[in-house]
């Protein structure tokens, strides 16, 4: 199956990147007048044009190719293959109900309003929790056994996986099951609503974990501060809170500090460009050429991420801090500035660069 290619900027999300890295850094957007350099601003894998997300992309309509099956969690892939091997519709239902039957029932104490999937047709509850390795596990239940079967599919397919993998799942895989399950967002769509709730809960769990790690309690609306590599094929109407929140938080959040993983990289640290490898040098060159900066600092901080799954196998130049002061940024919103830098470094992003931590200022702000 071809990789999703809605617009050129989405090449950022090529199929080989299955596990976009998590970077739990708070978004900080210093107001034009505040001169607080001690805060790092970081972006992670946000598509360079958010408008691509804003256009409703419904794979069900056939206009966009389905998410490649390899991008799905392994157990989910197995389940899909199993269903595809069963041809007769009735037998598929039997298979679905079989899954539902095996599903561990949800204890009554977990059948709360927060765990309930909104929708009036049947009652569905979903519970999520993280294990020690930050993989998300699910439990679910429903009074409708077809919905329970679908819930079981999701529970089996998604449990035990890292959060970003779960978030990457686009609902159109259900088309592959051949159950004639509709993908229309509606209150009648238990499946779609369930998946969304499961993804939302995974995100919430991660946000809560991060909150408890924060040194400063002033976290600006958890969700907005997290950037995850969300599947661009996902209809933004389903994920507005996550993506648009991120955007709005970028735009109006007051300086917020998260010393999380980058706690030892303050701007006051001296950055020596002589330590840069080839990529670092390329980045510096590109930015110099395109932005004619008054100030430019590029720092390779890949060593901090050396243990991450997605980094394994790459040559080590995966994470950078970049500080640029250029009059190209004058009058541009923070989002625009970051997009600009991303656009310039597209080639790098496609060839192994995983994350950039960007401080982008106009000379007047310095």
């Amino acid at each position, binding site marked *: 199956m071809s990789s999703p290619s809605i617009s050129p900027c989405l090449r950022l999300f090529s199929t080989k990147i299955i596990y976009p890295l998590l970077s739990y850094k708070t978004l900080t957007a210093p107001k034009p007048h505040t001169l607080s350099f001690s805060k790092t601003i970081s972006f992670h894998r946000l598509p360079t044009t958010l408008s691509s997300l804003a256009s409703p992309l419904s794979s069900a309509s056939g206009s966009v190719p389905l998410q490649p099956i390899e991008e799905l969690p392994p157990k989910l892939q197995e389940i899909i293959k199993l269903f595809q091997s069963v041809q007769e*519709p*009735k037998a598929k*239902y*039997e298979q679905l*109900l079989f899954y539902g*039957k095996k599903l561990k029932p949800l204890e009554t104490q977990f059948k709360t309003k927060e765990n309930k999937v909104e929708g*009036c*047709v*049947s*009652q569905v509850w979903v519970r999520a929790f993280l294990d020690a390795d930050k993989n998300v596990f699910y439990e679910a239940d429903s*009074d*409708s*056994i*077809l*919905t329970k079967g679908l819930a079981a599919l999701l529970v089996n397919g998604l449990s035990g996986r890292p959060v970003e993998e779960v978030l990457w799942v686009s609902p159109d895989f259900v088309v592959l099951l051949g159950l*004639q399950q509709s993908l229309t967002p509606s209150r009648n769509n*238990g499946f779609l609503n369930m998946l969304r709730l499961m993804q939302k809960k995974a995100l919430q769990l991660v946000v809560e974990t991060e909150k408890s790690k924060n040194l400063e309690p002033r976290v600006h609306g958890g969700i907005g501060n997290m950037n995850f590599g969300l599947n661009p094929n996902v209809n933004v109407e389903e994920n507005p809170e996550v993506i648009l929140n991120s955007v709005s938080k970028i735009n109006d959040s007051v300086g917020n500090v998260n010393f999380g993983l980058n706690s030892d990289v303050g701007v006051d640290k001296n950055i020596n460009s002589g330590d840069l490898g080839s990529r670092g040098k390329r980045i510096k060159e590109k930015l110099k050429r395109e932005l004619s900066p008054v100030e430019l600092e590029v720092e390779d901080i890949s060593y901090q991420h050396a243990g991450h799954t997605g980094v394994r196998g790459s040559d080590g130049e995966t994470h950078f801090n970049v500080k640029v002061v250029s009059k190209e940024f004058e009058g541009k919103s923070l989002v625009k500035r970051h997009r600009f830098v991303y656009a310039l470094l597209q080639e790098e992003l496609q060839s192994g660069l995983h994350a950039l931590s960007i401080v982008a200022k106009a000379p007047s702000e310095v």
Partner: protein
Amino acid sequence: MPSTLLQLCCSAMETLAPKLPSLKVLNPSSSSSSPSCSTARSSSSLRAGLRRPFSLSISASAVREGDPAVGSVSLGHVTRTDFPILHQEVNGSKLVYLDNAATSQKPTAVLKALQNYYEAYNSNVHRGIHFLSSKATDAYELARKKVAAFINASESTEIVFTKNATEAINLVAYSWGLSTLKPEDEVVLTIAEHHSAIVPWQLVAQKTGAVLKFVNLDETESPDIEKLRQMLSRKTKIVVVHHVSNMLASVLPIEEIVLWAHDVGAKVLVDACQSVPHMAVNVQDLDADFLVASSHKMCGPTGMGFLYGKRELLSAMPPFLGGGEMISDVFLDHSTYAEPPSRFEAGTPAIGEAIGLGAAIDYLSGIGMQKIHEYELELAKYLYENLLSVPNIRIYGPVPSGNTNRAALCSFNVENIHPTDIATFLDQQHGVAIRSGHHCAQPLHRYLGVNASARASLYFYNTKEDVDDFVRALNDTVSFFTSFK
């Protein structure tokens, strides 16, 4: 089929031809004439051989020789051909549409009327002077007259076109309710009302300090009329009741309710959405103060409904929505308003849809509401009795008997199987369209102690075969899910 059985069927057919189209399957070549056969009849083999022995016994007594209403084929068979949408396959099976309480299908005549309007004389109404505008206005006002005649309103100015019945109820609530209700005034409703009949009154009660009182069901599972009567007092200002329940299939004695209400000086708003499409409704006989119905449930287009209100009531009511058409003179600091119905028809109306509704009324009147009603009574009984044969089924509403008629719909639950599962399976494996959920009657479901129910609802273009297909599919569905327990 053994020949004796065939003979039995033939003899049965002689007397019952109009009522048992299912028997046509046995004798496909002859529809109206039955071959002569012996009259040997043994009741036990009849029951064994035919799936519907029950219908033989009641139809035999109910059949009228040379029944002018139906002839040799049922109304359903005759009218089906007028509805192109019914002749299709869904999910690999023939469509069996049993969700008519939600919305009805439209005959070609209505589709043509809509198309013709837009093709030939579409123009804004009441405003223009030119030929097209005048023609459109005439057609629009003619539709209003047709509605008035259909429900026997005394004049067409008592008909206000709205977007649907929900809007019509909101109109009464906001216009009449807000200006009339005072703190501690009472609004009497039943718990079986549709949300559209409850929520607007909740909103208005909040604003005015009025109180809502609800009548529960009695032991027959229809609204308790006696309790309703007792609930009425001089504090009651309006009684809001359905004529036919979209879930219980019960029919309320509106005439009596209106008498009791008027005795205490209360008005009555009748929600006739499930009655006007299915039987002759006469607002003057009922003496209802307000009555609402929707076009889309009676073979008309969506986006159209109407409010009937007695002239003196409408004349005293303030406007609901403001805009063009409903004004008389507009100044900067105030405006004066038009007479009803225009006072309540702000903005450009759904002209084509109103004309479509007029065409639907013509179509229905062409068949005759009496005929439609009688056929549906038959279908209702057939549906009910056959559904009872499904194991562990629980049908809501009153049991049909001598003087208790049900509408041609059944809400039901099968023990241990979720209605959504049933509806999904029926749709995907059998092409049968029913509804599952709370049918916009959550209070009623709560009262009955269920979260949701399934509902099959018929209209005059459904046939007994549709019911047979449905029940067969339902049995298959139930066994499928039961085998999983």
